[in-house]
């Protein structure tokens, strides 16, 4: 039996006929004018269509105006609903279903990168279009560790956008990736943050099976290091799990990237941390892995099903059957023919992802709810400055002395669609 108590004020109502009360919602963060007349950002117009795909003009219709008044690309479906043409890539979950959309609005892709240009920090970092991936979930439950779960039940709406390109060599060396992170929880935790998140160290990445791979200089070469890490599979990680003997199935779960971010907002005065959060972004079956023997280190998983056969040991399983069937249908004539990595029939396209929501910490009790930071989340001030990004956070301290983590969102979704292919 679940007995919800009458509020004390309602007890009083029994005696005094006094009414009970409730609370109020918040307004929009970024109301925007029409995008058509706005000056284009660097990110706007970057994408170019492949054969048979929607035109760039159709693609450009999906744009929004950033806080700087410039026009940015934003989320669109993989297939244009008006014309039926395919864009060949996807950006994840439609943000309009998020409970936070009313506050956040359309997310401008590349805004933090653009602000880095304006910040005059001697750094320039722009990312491709297809890597912008949105994920969100409403009313997710964050699980406190230990016995705190017997009394605390924190529920959150969360909306994330990370530029997570998993098709090129970019992330082998580059650790700066645009992250928009929005969360509002029942314990009054609230963050609306956009940064260039420094995920690990520049010039290197971590193997999914352990160890660091030094690759070369990053872009920009003076990229600051961060506390997270980019875990990317390498040939040495995949070989023992993918190449299997007859009768066995390859473990394509090893073909999995995990970008474990750690982002901090710090004040200019005292370099004090006012917020931090650690979402992990994972991509299953991306269209690349690292192999130092390949040009740029970029190897294609589809080739595992065709080119890499060590005697009886080779890649087997549903993924390879799909690749081999597609290659045969394509006229190559052999079950071991090569399927282009960017063929829409390849299962290695990075359309399955998930985000782990971890450690949303706000240390801003009685502080301002609006801060302006540089694109890396540092030098937080209460007034804007060149290249600054407006960050909104609750005026609370949500350190309870116990971890409040989880859950994983998006793991049960597949963002593939008509024509979606690598690079995605």
């Amino acid at each position, binding site marked *: 039996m679940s007995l919800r108590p009458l509020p004390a004020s309602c007890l009083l109502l029994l005696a005094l006929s006094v009414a009970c009360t409730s609370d109020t919602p918040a307004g929009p963060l970024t109301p925007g004018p029409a995008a058509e007349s706005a000056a284009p950002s660097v990110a706007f117009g970057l994408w170019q269509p492949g054969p048979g795909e929607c035109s760039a003009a159709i693609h450009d219709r999906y744009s929004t105006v950033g806080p700087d008044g410039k026009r940015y690309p934003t989320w669109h479906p993989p297939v244009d609903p008006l014309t039926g043409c395919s864009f060949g890539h996807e950006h994840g979950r439609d943000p309009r279903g998020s409970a936070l959309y009313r506050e956040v609005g359309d997310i401008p892709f590349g805004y933090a990168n653009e602000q880095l240009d304006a910040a005059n920090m001697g750094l320039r970092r722009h990312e491709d279009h297809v890597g912008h991936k949105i994920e969100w979930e409403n009313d997710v439950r964050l699980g406190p560790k230990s016995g705190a779960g017997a009394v*605390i039940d924190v529920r959150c709406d969360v909306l994330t956008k990370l530029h997570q390109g998993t098709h090129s060599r970019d992330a082998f060396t580059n650790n700066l990736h645009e992250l928009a992170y929005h969360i509002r929880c029942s*314990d009054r935790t609230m963050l609306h943050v956009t940064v260039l998140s420094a995920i690990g160290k520049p010039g290197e990445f971590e193997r999914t099976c352990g160890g660091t791979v030094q690759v070369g200089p990053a872009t920009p070469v003076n990229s600051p290091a961060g506390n997270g890490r980019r875990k990317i599979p390498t040939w040495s990680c995949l070989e023992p799990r993918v190449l299997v003997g007859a009768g066995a199935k390859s473990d394509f779960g090893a073909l999995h990237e995990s970008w474990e971010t750690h982002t901090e907002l710090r004040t200019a005065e005292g370099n004090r941390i006012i917020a931090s959060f650690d979402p992990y972004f994972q991509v299953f079956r991306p269209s690349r892995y690292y192999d130092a023997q390949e040009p740029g280190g970029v190897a294609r998983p589809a080739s595992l099903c065709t080119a890499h056969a060590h005697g009886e040991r080779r890649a087997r399983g549903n993924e390879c059957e799909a690749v081999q069937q597609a290659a045969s249908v394509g006229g190559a004539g052999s079950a071991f023919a090569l399927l282009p990595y960017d063929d829409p029939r390849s299962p290695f396209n990075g359309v399955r992802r998930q985000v782990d929501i971890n450690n949303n910490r706000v240390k801003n009790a009685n502080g301002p709810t609006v801060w302006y930071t540089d694109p890396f989340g540092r030098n937080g001030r209460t007034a804007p400055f060149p290249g600054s990004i407006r960050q909104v956070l609750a005026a609370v*301290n*949500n*350190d309870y002395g*116990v971890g409040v983590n989880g859950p994983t969102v998006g793991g049960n979704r597949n963002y593939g669609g008509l024509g979606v292919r690598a690079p995605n």
Partner: protein
Amino acid sequence: MPALLAAIALLLLLVSPVWAQSTAGDPPSPGLATPSAIKRDASTLARRIGLWASAGGGRGTAGLHCDACRSDAAPAFTMHAAIGGRPHPRFHVGVETWAWLDVIGNGVDRTARGTQLIARHYPSTRRSWFVTGGVGTSRFGVDDGDARFSASSPALSLGGGWDLPFRGVVLSPTLVMTSSTGGALRSDRTGNPVAEDARLGFWRGTVAVTWF
């Protein structure tokens, strides 16, 4: 201040019918108990004169309610004790303390406790049933031996019961609802609030032994 106002209101509610009616030595007013009915319950009423004390136990269901609270209400054992006096034959006042303990397992306990000023009113001279109310403080907490969270706030109680004479004492089955006005649910480790408006809801059904 709201708790104080509530307390005053509650006490006035409980007291007002008493002062509107006759005292033990007055002739009965129209519509009140007949002399024979009063005589029938006289022995019980007589035992209510002077000081009184009460202690009991039973089952209670407590839960904490706020935007970030897990509000699963669970039945568990509860105890209470009270002591007081009687300024009027049909009106008792006193101080009560109560506690509730829910052993969840794995070293995790949930507790609720409170102390309050209470008033008890016997509306009928022919029956021994009563209504009771109180105002005081309450505290709800969860403790796993490592971390502890608790919420304290003013609380109001309202309930009713029955006096049953039994071998020189009085057994009083009672049902009471307690609700707090809402307070901060804090981590005892950091002092930071998870919620500012955590309200305790507590129902208890108990049997008390009362001495008059």
